[in-house]
Structure formats: C-alpha cells, structure tokens
C-alpha cells in the first residue's frame, strides 16, 4: 500500500509532511527548504516553473506568473472580479462558469494551476523517500488541508487539483483542526481551542471544541486580505519615502528583500538596520500596530459567535509565519489571557497536522478520531426563491439529509433541483452548488410521484446525491452540473494533459532544485557573516585570506544562479560549501560553548 502524505496547500506557501517513527516531519528539498511558494510560471518555450523559481520569475515575467490561486478555487468569474483587477495575470472564463487563468499562451482552471504545485510536492516527497533508500517511494495518496470555511465547491476543486496531479485525496481536513492535531490537543479530555492563523496574505481565526479526541469547529472568522505582505508593504513605503519613489524594478526588489530581512531580524533582536539607519523593535511595533489590531476584532467576533467569553478558551495555537512577530504574540496573548502555543514552527504546523491525519488513515490507529463539521448549511431552492435547509451547518460529517419531491404536471418524467450552500433565507444570497435533473420518473398523474432525494456529505465535506421514486422503488438517474466546478470528464482530460508536460517539467525541476540548494548555502553564509560576532571570529579564528576566499566563492555562486546551467551551479555550490566549512565549524563551536555557559550567542 502506497504512502499517504499530508499537504498544506496554502495561498502563499505549500508544504508536504509525513509521519516518521511516530512523529510528523516536513519534507525539505536538498537545500533544507520546506516551503514551496504557491507560485506557477510558464516560460516562452512552454516550460512550467513552480515554487522559488516561479517566484523569481514574478520579477522578470509577471504577466506569465500566477500566485494566490487558492483565492480562485471553486469560484465563478462573477465572484472574483474585484480580486482579479488587483493581480497582474489574466483572469477570465465564461460568465456564470468556472474561472480560467491565463498562464503563458494557455488558459488553465484554478485546480489545474494548483495541480502544478501539488505535483511539485509529490515529486519532492518521492525524491525524499528514494533518497532514504525506500523501495516503495511512490506517493499516490494525500491528506490536503483547506480553510474551515471552504464550501463544497472549493473543497471539490481542491480534490480535483489532487486528481489532476495524480494524487488520490483520501481526506480533506480543516486547517485549524490540523494545527490542533499537530499540537496533540486531541489528547485533552475536553477543551476550547482558538487557532490564530496570520499568513502572508490571509488571516483566519477559528474556535474549536475538543472532547475525547473529537474536534468540532464552533466558529470561524478573519480577513481574506490581511497578512505579512501588508507589513512588508508598510516597511517598503517607509524606505521609498526616504530614498525617493522612482526606483528601478531591481532596486525595489532589493529594498523588498532588505525590509523582509529586517522584519525577520526584529523577531529575535531588539534592533537592526534598514537603509543604513538604526531601526528598533519599538519603531517597528509602532508602525505595524494598526495591522495587528485589525486581527483582533475578528477574534472577538469569533469568540462571540461561538457563544463564549475569551477567558473560557483553554488553548491558543499560532499558525503562519507572521505569528513569529513578538507584538502579534503579545497582543494575542493579552486578548485570550494566556500564552499562545508557539513550540512548533508556525509555517509548518498545518502540514504536520495533515501528516498526523494521514498516518491515522494509513495505519488505522483508533486512538484519535477527527470529526469535522460542515461549515455551511445545505439546502435546495423552493418556490419563491427561498432556500429550504436539508443539512444544517455545524452538523458532524459524514451526514445525510433527504427531501421528497413530487411532480406538478401529469406524466411529468423529470424534476429540476437546485442545490445551494449558505445561511441566508433567499437563494440569491447563498452559494449555488449544482443543478440536478432527476429523470426516469414513471409517468403518473400530477402530485402522485414521490421522489426521495438523498443528500450525502462525506467526511471531506463533499456532497453527493442519489434519488429514488418511492412508489415504484426505481433509482433515478442524476446529471450533475456543478455551478463552479469541473465534471469528471473534464478532470480526466486534464489529468491526461498533465502527462504531456511531465518531460519538460523534469529538466526544469532539476535546475530548480539545484538553484534552491545554492540559495540556501548563500543565505546561510551571508547570515553567518552578518552576525554581530563575525568580526571577532574573522580576526581570531580564520586563516589569513580565508574571508576573502569565502567572499569570492560567494560572488561566483551568486553569478552562477543567474544562469540556467545546472552543472555550473552545482560546482559553485560545492566550492562555496568547501570554502565555508571551517567557518561553519568555528561558528558552531562558539554557539555550543555559549549554550553550555548559559549565555545567548548575541550576548557574547
């Protein structure tokens, strides 16, 4: 039986994880990087790039590069008009139909774009298992996470993305539930959990109840356009105001990198430099305070919606890179009156939880049981454009509901049914999921037929429908036309199409991996050389000319990654690795000594 991995398919970054010797771990590339930026780019020659490489191309070829595709999953063109106007890539499609995104010369649906990312994660996992020397290294099954508020169309689109990428999505679970699983909070006998998720571009808050290993989402809230990117933008504005607003694209990118580095620095230090000037954590906190404050109202609202008081929350879990910022931790801690969990890497925690669930599925371990709920009520259109609810929101899934229909005319053999999801009274305010035509009703006088339609929501929150005429006990044929989704045939065709890309993708992937590894070596070297203790190390521990040799190797590798020659990058990476071997040992020894003497490295 093939392995099951856990995947966090994020708006900004995606990750893959699995359980090894009883503990979940994320799978890194050879350069040690766990995050795959959720970016897909197509070159002129049709080569498709994913992740870091695609992110790089955002600077050089923005029109052929797609990001934040998660925002479009399961959506119709009408839903995303506002969103699309803010993005550099083409967003189109037929009115009332599924969104199409322009990538190079072709158009793709959001599940196809997401499939490129999933395929990259699949390959990453397979390469990892192969490197571990495992005989069976194929990855064909996955647990994928989605936001708790995702509706049926968005969940179905996520499952379709998996199928197009050659992955059987054995379970879709909610991100906050996954984060709680990663922390082992299911082991609590009972408790209330708040999951605060501040990512690159989105903010989500969820309140969960856990009882004897059973999870229930009580409420969710958030802001779909609030995150770390807004903080970067504020810092960039600050610098651009100082250096002048008209800058070349390269210079702007340089500034962007510098301010992101400064933001990271200020999470573990009291001060840093931006644009050659001293910048303290206090300055930073004053600047970003309004952004962090904007997350607090949705938190209060979610607590109220759950019928609770902030003091009743037993555990607070932090998710998303932006929760590393001390101000965020402090304000969240104050709001809930307790120190939030931050023991796990907030970028990885959702993927780790997905891996825990994957392991439960693969091994059949019955200690834990995750019972999610459906976030929205399911219903059908009745006379007068009113929605009649069949399965109520917050019902534990899987769940069923049924409704009996009859015919309005003599000898009528078909009935049209419109399925919706949402909480509002009028169908126009709810989400249209699908239209069904029930056929094969035996001819009889009007009002005599009794067609029972059974709605089934499975453990993934995905709907299926069956129907039966009760008088004759005849099973009905149902044609499903998802309002904003793909039919099975379309998914099948996309899966076949994707094989055509496979060859070109392979060469591109090798280059990307090489580049990623090079980048991480560069990053590590630069970090060591920028550390406050470096001048002392250079003076005391390094041989004459050693620093110069390192700097030369660094410059050569930086030049090499700008080119497309994989061999050269490989060679220069090794060269830099060799040149920094001694430096790395020295730095490591110092930090070990510092740790042994109980002092912080920064204090030496």
């Amino acid at each position, binding site marked *: *039986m093939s392995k*099951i991995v856990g995947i966090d398919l994020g708006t900004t970054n995606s990750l893959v994880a699995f359980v090894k010797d009883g503990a979940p771990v994320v799978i890194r590339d050879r350069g040690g990087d766990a995050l795959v930026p959720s970016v897909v780019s197509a070159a002129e020659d049709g080569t498709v790039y994913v992740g870091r490489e695609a992110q790089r191309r955002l600077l050089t070829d923005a029109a052929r590069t797609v990001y934040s595709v998660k925002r479009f999953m399961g959506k119709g063109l009408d839903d995303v008009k506002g969103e699309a106007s803010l993005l550099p890539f083409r967003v189109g499609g037929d009115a009332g139909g599924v969104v199409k995104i322009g990538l190079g010369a072709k158009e793709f649906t959001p599940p196809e774009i997401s499939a490129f990312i999933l395929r990259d994660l699949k390959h990453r996992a397979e390469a990892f298992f192969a490197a571990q020397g495992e005989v069976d290294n194929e990855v064909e099954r996955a647990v994928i996470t989605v936001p708790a508020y995702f509706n049926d169309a968005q969940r179905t689109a996520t499952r379709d993305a998996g199928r197009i990428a050659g992955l059987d999505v*054995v*379970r879709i679970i909610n991100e906050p539930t996954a984060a709680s699983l990663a922390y082992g909070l299911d082991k609590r006998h009972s408790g209330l959990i708040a999951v605060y998720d501040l990512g690159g571009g989105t903010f989500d808050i969820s309140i969960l109840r856990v*009882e*004897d*290993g*059973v999870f229930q989402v009580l409420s969710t809230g958030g802001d779909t356009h609030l995150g770390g990117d807004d903080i970067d933008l504020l810092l960039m504005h600050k610098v651009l105001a100082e250096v002048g607003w008209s800058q070349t694209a390269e210079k702007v990118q340089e500034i962007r990198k510098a301010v992101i580095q400064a933001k990271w620095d200020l999470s573990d230090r009291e001060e840093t430099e931006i644009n050659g000037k001293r910048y303290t954590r206090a300055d930073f906190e004053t600047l970003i305070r309004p952004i962090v404050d904007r997350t607090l109202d949705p938190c209060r609202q979610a607590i109220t919606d759950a019928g609770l008081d902030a003091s009743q929350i037993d555990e607070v879990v932090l998710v998303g890179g932006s929760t590393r910022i001390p101000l965020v931790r402090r304000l969240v801690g104050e709001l809930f009156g307790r120190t939030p969990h931050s023991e796990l890497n907030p970028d990885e925690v959702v993927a780790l939880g997905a891996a825990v*669930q994957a392991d*439960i*599925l*693969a091994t*059949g371990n*019955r200690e834990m*049981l*995750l*019972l999610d709920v459906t976030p929205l009520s399911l219903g059908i259109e009745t006379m007068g454009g009113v929605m009649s609810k069949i399965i109520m929101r917050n*019902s*534990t*899934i*899987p*769940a*069923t509901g049924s409704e009996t229909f009859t015919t309005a005319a003599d000898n009528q053999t078909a009935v049209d049914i419109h399925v919706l999801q949402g909480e509002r009274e009028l169908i126009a305010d709810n989400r249209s999921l699908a239209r069904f035509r029930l056929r094969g009703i035996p001819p009889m006088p009007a009002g005599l037929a009794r067609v029972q339609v059974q709605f*089934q*929501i*499975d*453990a993934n929150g995905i709907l299926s429908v069956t129907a039966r005429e009760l008088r004759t006990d005849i099973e009905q044929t149902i044609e499903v036309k998802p309002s904003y989704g793909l039919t099975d045939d379309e998914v099948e065709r996309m899966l076949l199409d994707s094989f055509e890309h496979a060859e070109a993708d392979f060469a591109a992937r090798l280059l990307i991996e090489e580049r990623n590894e090079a980048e991480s070596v560069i990053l590590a070297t630069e970090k060591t050389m920028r550390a406050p203790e470096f001048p002392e190390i250079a003076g005391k521990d390094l041989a004459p000319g050693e620093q110069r040799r390192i700097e030369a190797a660094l410059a050569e590798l930086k030049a090499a990654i700008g080119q497309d020659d994989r061999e050269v990058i490989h060679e220069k990476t090794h060269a830099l690795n060799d040149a920094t071997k001694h430096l790395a040992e020295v730095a490591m020894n110092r930090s070990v000594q510092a740790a042994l003497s109980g002092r912080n490295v920064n204090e030496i």
Partner: protein
Amino acid sequence: MTSQITASPLQVCRDCGGGAPVDAHFCPQCTKILTISRHGDYFRFLGLPRKLHIGANDLDQRFRGLSRQFHPDYFVNAAPAERRASLERSSYLNDAYRTLKSLISRVEYLLQVEGLAARSPQEASQQVPQSLLQEVFALNEELDEIRDLRASGTPADQLKARLEKARGPIDEKRASHEAQLDELSTKWDALVDRNAADAERRPVLEALRERVLERNYINNLLAGIEREMSNV
C-alpha cells in the same frame, strides 16, 4: 425489549451471505462491516430502548464508541463495498446522535417512528392550538398597538419595555410546556418498561404530539416578538 430483539428481522451480509440481527453493525460470521439496513431506527442503532429520557453521558459515550468502530477514517484501505458501508453507517450514526441529543427532537423522532409524525412546521403554525387561543389573541392585540405607537414616534425604550412585558405570558407558557413534555416522557418510559399494550401507549403519544405542535407555535410567537424587537 428482549422479545422485540428476538422477533427482529434478519439482515443479510452482502459479503459472506450470512444472516445478522437487524441492529448488528458487523457480520457475526465474517466480521465485515454491514451495509446499513433499511429497517431499524436510531434508538436500536445506538443500542437504546425506545425511551425518551436518555442520560447525556450515556448517549455521548455510545456515540463516540460507535464512531471509533466505523468512521470512514478506519476504512481507507478497505474494499469499496466496506468503505461505502462505513460511510453510510457513520452518517446514520451522526444523524441519530444529532436527533436523539435533545428531548424535543427525540420526541419528534419517536412520533415519526411510531407513525404519528407531526405535520410540517408551516402547516402546524397556521392552526392555533386550543390551549393557546387566549394568549395568542392578547399578544396579537398588543403587537398591533405597539406597531401603531412605533409609527407615531414613541421612544424605543418604552416600546421595548412593552414588548418585554408581552413576552412574559408566552415565556411562562413555554416553561409550563417543557414541564408537561417532561412529565409525559416519564409516563411513556414507564409504559415501555412494562411492555404496555398499544391501546395504553396511544393516548400518551397523542398527547406528546399535541405538545410538539404547541411548542412549534410558541416558538413562532417568540420569534415574532424578537422580530418586533429588532424593528424598534
């Protein structure tokens, strides 16, 4: 209860063809999870007698215990037929738990399986139950007056106070109503315990049905007052 179980029809395991009691979850012969049978009911499914007082802890424990037996998470590697059976059985369990969790939905469900289903809420709300005629008449008059006062610009806090007051008798009615439901439930449970004849059970069920209709009506009245409140 014992006599009922022995008299219960058999279901057939689709996997090995062996017979199993209708409320068994797994085939006694081949141990495979059984396709859900169209017979049986929520009470039997959870191993409970058809009684209206159920300990909340008992119900929770049965629910979790059965979830751990047939949740789809544990059948990911099983054959398609077993996966299907696990999905159906889990859905049925979740529906059963949700239905039996509160007394009122338990009563409604009992009436349904005993063949005395309440009319649809829409239908029920159109007809004023006899026992409520007086209160409904008074309330409607009061609401009309409040609407007139609102139209003539009476301050909101005065209107709110009147609405609160109008609510009083209805709230009282609901409280006494809950007590009646509880009393009838106890009566029903005693009948089940001593395996009473249908002739004895029938009047209790009829009375329960009346209470359910009244309850729907009372809830509609309270919702009407809430609506007026939000208009003020």
